[in-house]
C-alpha cells in the first residue's frame, strides 16, 4: 500500500467523523528524523500517533517489534493497542496482503512497563527478577531499613542535620499529630514524616539525574542526604528490590551496557530487529531521566517522535517540568547536532463546542505568566474549532452557591434533570472534576453526600475512603484482636490518630462479632492459642494467613462473594502482603510477615513486632488512607457519575464537565521548591528551574491544571463556585483582575 492509498483508506474509516487535516497528514507522513508534535486538546493527537504507527507498518514495512510507542498510563497504552488492532483489521479487510504484519508486536507500553519488560526479556544482569515496589512498599521499605528512621536514636541522630535542610518536604501537615513539624525545634520529625519526605527526595535525586558527588561535596544537609540516599539504594538492590524511579535508572544502565545491543541494534531477524522508531505520547510530562532514556533509545535511528501539549503538563511532582517538551528542538540540536527538526502544531480542536474552545483558549492567554519565554512552546497558534457540536444552550456557564453543600445540591439536581429529560443517556456522560477527591468537608464530601441523597450512583475510587468501609474495619479489627488481644502494644503507641483508628476497627469487629458467634469464638481461641505458645518461637502462621483465616467465617465468608466488598478486601490483602514481604532489617532473610512470639512467657506476638506494625503500616494507613482498586482497563464504569481529580481526567473527554474549586490554591509547593533547590546540581542546561520564580511556577502549574479541566468538555462546561469566591477570585477565574474571560459566561 502506498502513502496515498493509505491516507485514503484511513480517511474512510467509518465512525471517525472527520477527515484528516493537513497538519495531521504531516505527522502521519513524516519520514525519518525527529518529529515534534505540539498537539492542543482534542486535536486528534492519539489517532495521529496511531496512524503514524500504522503508516510505518503498512507503507514503510518497518518491522513491528522495532517500533516503541509509550504513553502515560496502562489504560492509555491499552487504548492505543486497541486502536491499532481495530484499524489494522480494517486495513486488512481492504488489502489482504497486510495480514502477514504481526502488528501486536509493536511495543506499546508505559515507560515503566517498557523498562521492566525489556530488562526482563533481555535478562539484564542488574535487574533479574527484582520486585518492583509501589509507593506504599517503598515507604515501608524506607521506614524499616533507613538508618535515618531507626528507632535507635543513637543511629538516627547521625542524620539530624538532614531534616531542617529540606523543610518543604518535612515541615508539612502531619495527620498523626495534626501539626506541622518545626525545623527550628531542635528535634527531628517523626518516622512517618521522615519517610514521606525521604521518598520524595530519593525519587527526585534519580529523576532529575542529580550529581550526587557535587551534592555530597556541598556538605551539611546535602552530604547527609546523599549518605541516606546511597544507603537506601544499596539496601534496595541488595534485597532484589527496585522502586519506580530506579527502574528507569537501571534501564538507562541497561541501555548503556553490552547486554542491550541485541535490543537496540538487533541481529537482522524479525525476532530482534533493533529499535527503529520511538514514539512518545504525553511528552509534556517527561522528566530528565526519561528524556535521557528516549534519546538513548533513538540514538541510532534518530527517529524520535514526541507528541504532547505544553499547556497540559501536570506532573511536576514526578519531575516532569515541561522543559523537555518546550526544549525538544534544542535537545535534538545539542545531543544529536541536528540543526533543524520538523515541528507540527495540531491546533484544530475536534472535541469541544466552539464556545468552550474560545473560553479555555482565552483563559490560557489571560495570564501574563504564560507568555514569559520558556513557559510555552514558541509560536504556538490559537486553537481553532473543528467540531460540529452546537446548540442554543450555554456552552460555558457558572453557578454561584451559598456554600459547598448548596453547590453540591445544585449539581445533583442538575444531573437528575438532565437524565430525567433524556438530555443525557447515562450519568457517566457527566464528570465532576476536583483538585482532590478525598471524602472530606472541603473536598468531595459534600458532593458524595448530595449524590447519595439523590440516589445518584457515583464512582470515586480515589476518595481515600476504603478504610471507612464496614468489611475493612471488621477484618482489621479482627486482625488486631488476634495479634494484640489486650491492646498492650496499641496503648504504647504515642499517636492518638493511630490508637483511635485501631479502636474504631476493634469496635466495628465487636459489633459484627456480637451477632456472629463462630467468628467471635474463633478469634478468641486463635489469640489465646498464640498467648499459650512458648517464648521466642515461630507462631506457625504468617500475617497473611491470619487474614485469610478470618475470611472463612460469616459474615466475611459471605462478603467475599460480593464483587464490591471483595475487591476492597483484595486491596487490604495486597497492603498486608506488601508489609509481609518487607525484609526484616535485623535479618533480611526473614520478612516482616513472619511472626514470632515474645521472649517473655505468655506475651503473645513479639512486642517489638507489634509496635513496629502499628507505627509503620498502620501509621501509614492512618495518615494516608487507602484508595479503592481501579479496573486496569476501563477508566470508569457506565451508569455512575465519575468524580475525578483533574490529574485523573488527563487524556479523557466527557460530554458535560463540572469543575469545582476555582479559587483553590492546592499546589504542590514542595515540588516547586525542591526543583529550585536541586537545580544547582542538575546536569541539564535546559532546566527552567532558575528561569522562573517559585511564585511564577506555582501559578503556571495551576493555570495548566485548570486548562486541562476545562478542555475535557465536549458539549458543556459548568463551573461551580461558592459566593465567597467572588470576593477573592482564584486562578480558576482567569488571569486578569476583571476576569474578562468570564465575561460571556452565563450564570445559572
Amino acid at each position, binding site marked *: 500500500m502506498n502513502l496515498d492509498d493509505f491516507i485514503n483508506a484511513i480517511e474512510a474509516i467509518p465512525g471517525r467523523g472527520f477527515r484528516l487535516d493537513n497538519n495531521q497528514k504531516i505527522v502521519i507522513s513524516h519520514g525519518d528524523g525527529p518529529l515534534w508534535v505540539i498537539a492542543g486538546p482534542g486535536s486528534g493527537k492519539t489517532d495521529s500517533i496511531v496512524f503514524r504507527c500504522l503508516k510505518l507498518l503498512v507503507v514503510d514495512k518497518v518491522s513491528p517489534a522495532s517500533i516503541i510507542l509509550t504513553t502515560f498510563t496502562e489504560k492509555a497504552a491499552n487504548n492505543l493497542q486497541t486502536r491499532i488492532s481495530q484499524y489494522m483489521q480494517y486495513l486488512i479487510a481492504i488489502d489482504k496482503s497486510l495480514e502477514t504484519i504481526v502488528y501486536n508486536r509493536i511495543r506499546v507500553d508505559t515507560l515503566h512497563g517498557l523498562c521492566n519488560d525489556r530488562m526482563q*526479556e533481555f535478562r539484564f544482569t542488574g535487574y533479574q*527478577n527484582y520486585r518492583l515496589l509501589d509507593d506504599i512498599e517503598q515507604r515501608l521499605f524506607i521506614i524499616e531499613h533507613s538508618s535515618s528512621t531507626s528507632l535507635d536514636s543513637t543511629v538516627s541522630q547521625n542524620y539530624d542535620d538532614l531534616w531542617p535542610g529540606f523543610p518543604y518536604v518535612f515541615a508539612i501537615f502531619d495527620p498523626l499529630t495534626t501539626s506541622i513539624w518545626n525545623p527550628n525545634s531542635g528535634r527531628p520529625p517523626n518516622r512517618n514524616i521522615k519517610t514521606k519526605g525521604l521518598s520524595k527526595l530519593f525519587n527526585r535525586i534519580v529523576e532529575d539525574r542529580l550529581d550526587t558527588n557535587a551534592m555530597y561535596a556541598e556538605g551539611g544537609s546535602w552530604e547527609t542526604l546523599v549518605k541516606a540516599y546511597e544507603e537506601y539504594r544499596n539496601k534496595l538492590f541488595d534485597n532484589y528490590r527496585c522502586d519506580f524511579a530506579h527502574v528507569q535508572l537501571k534501564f538507562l544502565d541497561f541501555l548503556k*551496557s553490552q547486554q542491550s545491543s541485541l535490543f537496540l541494534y538487533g541481529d537482522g531477524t524479525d525476532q530482534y530487529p533493533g529499535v527503529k522508531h520511538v514514539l512518545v505520547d504525553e511528552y509534556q510530562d517527561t522528566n530528565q531521566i526519561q528524556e535521557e532514556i528516549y534519546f538513548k533509545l533513538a540514538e541510532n535511528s534518530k527517529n524520535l517522535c514526541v507528541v504532547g501539549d505544553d499547556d497540559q503538563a501536570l506532573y511536576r511532582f514526578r519531575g516532569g517540568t515541561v522543559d523537555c517538551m518546550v526544549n525538544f528542538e534544542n535537545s535534538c540540536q545539542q545531543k544529536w547536532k541536528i540543526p533543524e527538526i520538523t515541528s507540527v502544531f495540531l491546533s484544530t480542536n475536534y472535541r469541544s463546542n466552539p464556545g468552550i474552545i474560545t473560553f479555555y483558549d482565552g483563559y490560557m492567554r489571560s495570564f501574563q505568566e504564560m507568555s514569559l519565554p520558556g513557559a510555552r512552546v514558541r509560536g504556538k497558534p490559537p486553537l481553532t474549532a473543528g467540531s460540529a457540536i452546537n446548540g442554543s444552550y450555554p456552552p460555558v456557564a457558572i453557578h454561584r452557591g451559598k456554600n459547598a453543600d448548596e453547590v453540591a445540591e445544585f449539581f445533583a439536581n*442538575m444531573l437528575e434533570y438532565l437524565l430525567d429529560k433524556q438530555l443525557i443517556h447515562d450519568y*457517566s456522560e457527566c464528570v465532576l472534576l476536583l483538585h482532590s477527591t478525598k471524602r472530606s468537608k472541603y473536598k468531595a464530601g459534600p458532593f458524595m453526600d448530595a449524590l447519595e441523597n439523590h440516589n445518584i450512583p457515583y464512582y470515586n475510587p480515589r476518595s481515600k475512603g476504603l478504610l471507612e468501609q464496614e468489611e475493612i474495619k471488621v477484618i482489621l479489627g479482627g486482625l488486631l484482636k488476634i495479634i494484640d488481644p489486650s491492646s498492650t502494644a496499641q496503648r504504647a503507641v504515642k499517636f492518638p490518630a493511630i490508637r483511635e483508628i485501631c479502636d474504631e476497627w476493634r469496635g466495628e469487629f465487636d459489633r459484627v462479632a456480637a451477632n456472629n458467634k463462630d467468628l467471635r469464638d474463633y478469634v478468641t481461641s486463635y489469640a489465646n492459642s498464640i498467648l499459650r505458645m512458648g517464648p521466642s518461637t515461630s507462631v506457625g*502462621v504468617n500475617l497473611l494467613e491470619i487474614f485469610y483465616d478470618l475470611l472463612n467465617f460469616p459474615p466475611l465468608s459471605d462478603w467475599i462473594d460480593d464483587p464490591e466488598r471483595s475487591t476492597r478486601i483484595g486491596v487490604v490483602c495486597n497492603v498486608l502482603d506488601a508489609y*509481609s514481604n518487607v525484609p526484616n532489617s535485623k535479618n533480611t532473610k526473614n520478612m516482616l510477615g513472619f511472626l514470632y512470639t515474645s521472649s517473655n512467657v505468655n506475651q503473645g506476638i513479639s512486642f517489638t513486632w507489634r509496635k513496629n506494625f502499628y507505627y509503620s503500616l498502620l501509621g501509614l494507613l492512618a495518615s494516608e488512607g487507602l484508595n479503592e482498586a481501579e479496573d486496569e482497563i476501563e477508566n470508569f464504569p457506565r451508569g455512575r457519575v465519575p468524580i475525578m481529580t483533574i490529574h485523573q481526567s488527563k487524556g479523557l473527554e466527557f*460530554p458535560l464537565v463540572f469543575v469545582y474549586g476555582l479559587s483553590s490554591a492546592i499546589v504542590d509547593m514542595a515540588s516547586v521548591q525542591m526543583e529550585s533547590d536541586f537545580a544547582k546540581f542538575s546536569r541539564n542546561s535546559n532546566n527552567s528551574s532558575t528561569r522562573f520564580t517559585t511564585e511564577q511556577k506555582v501559578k503556571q502549574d495551576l493555570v495548566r491544571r485548570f486548562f486541562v479541566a476545562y478542555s475535557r468538555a465536549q458539549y458543556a462546561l459548568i463551573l461551580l463556585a461558592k459566593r465567597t469566591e467572588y470576593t477573592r477570585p482564584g486562578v480558576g477565574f482567569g488571569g486578569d483582575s476583571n476576569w474578562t474571560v468570564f465575561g460571556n459566561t452565563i450564570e445559572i
Partner: protein
Amino acid sequence: MDSFDRYKDLNVRQITTNDLKRKYSVTADVLSYRRCPRLYASQSIRSFAPAQPSQRYVGSMIHQVLDRAHLQYSGRISNATANQIPNDDQIRIYFNEVDSALRAHGIRPFNPELGEYVLKLLQRFNRIEGKDLYPRVKDTEHKLQSDRGRYILHGVVDVLVSPTGSDSRDVEIWDYKGTKRPIETTGFGKKILEDYKFQMLVYSSLFKMRNGYYPSKGVIYFLGELRGQTITSRPSSAVLEVPLDDAEMNKALQSFDNTVSQIETSKDTNNWPPPSNGAETAGRETCDACDLRTSCPKERNKYHHRIPGSK
C-alpha cells in the same frame, strides 16, 4: 429548574464504547479458571495475594535456572563463555541467584529439603540433556500473542528447539514441568495431561499465527522424572511428545474461546462457583493450598479451621 431549561437543546451523541481488549493466557487464565473459578476469581479478578506462594516455587525455579543455563550457552550472560555447558557449581550459583530473587517476591520452598531436591533435579537435567539440547535452543521464554477479535490471547513458550540447525523452519516447542509425569490411568492425572496437551496445541497455533508455519511437535519435559541418585540418562517417562494436528489445534482454540466466554459471563453475573465435583477437578494439591478452603462450598468439610499451635 428554570436555569436547567437552558439546556433543553442539548443533544449529546451517545458514547459508543470502544471495546478495550483484555488479555487472556493459557495457564494464568483459562486453565486456572477451568480448575476452579472460585480460586481464579480471588486471585486474578480481585487480586488477592496468596499467603504461601510456595506452590509456585518449583516451577519458577526450574524455568529461571534453565533459562540462565540456556543463556549462558548462547553467550547472553555477561562473563559467561558461549557454547559451554554449565557445570554443577554454575547451576548452583544460578539456583542461589534465583532463590534470592524469588524470596523478594515472597516465593520460598515449603522446607529447605525441597530446595535441595529441585537443585539436584536441575543439575541432573543439565548433565543429561545439556550437551544435545543447548546447542539446538533457538529461543527461550518466547512470547507469543494473537488478537482474537474480542480479546488478546497470549502465552510464553519455555524453549524453541531446532532439531536440525538454527536456520531450519523445523522447530519444536518445549515446555518444562517440575512434577513427575501424571499417571494417565487416574482421572485427575488424565485431566492434567489433557491440560498440558491443550497448552501445547494453543501455543502451536499462536506460533503459526506469528511465523506462518506450525512447529513440528510439542515436547513436554517432566523434570520430576529425574528424581533418584542413579539416574544418568533420560528416562522415557520424562518426555511426552504432543502431535500437532491441524484439527486438534483448531479445536483447542475454539475451546479457549469458549472458556474466555465463560470467564466473561462469570464477570457479568459475579458467579464463580467451585467446580461441581470439587477437588476431583481442581486437584487435591490446589485445594490444600487454597487460602479460602475452609469456606469452600464443595470442600470445606475436608478441612478444619486453623488454630496455630494446635494439631
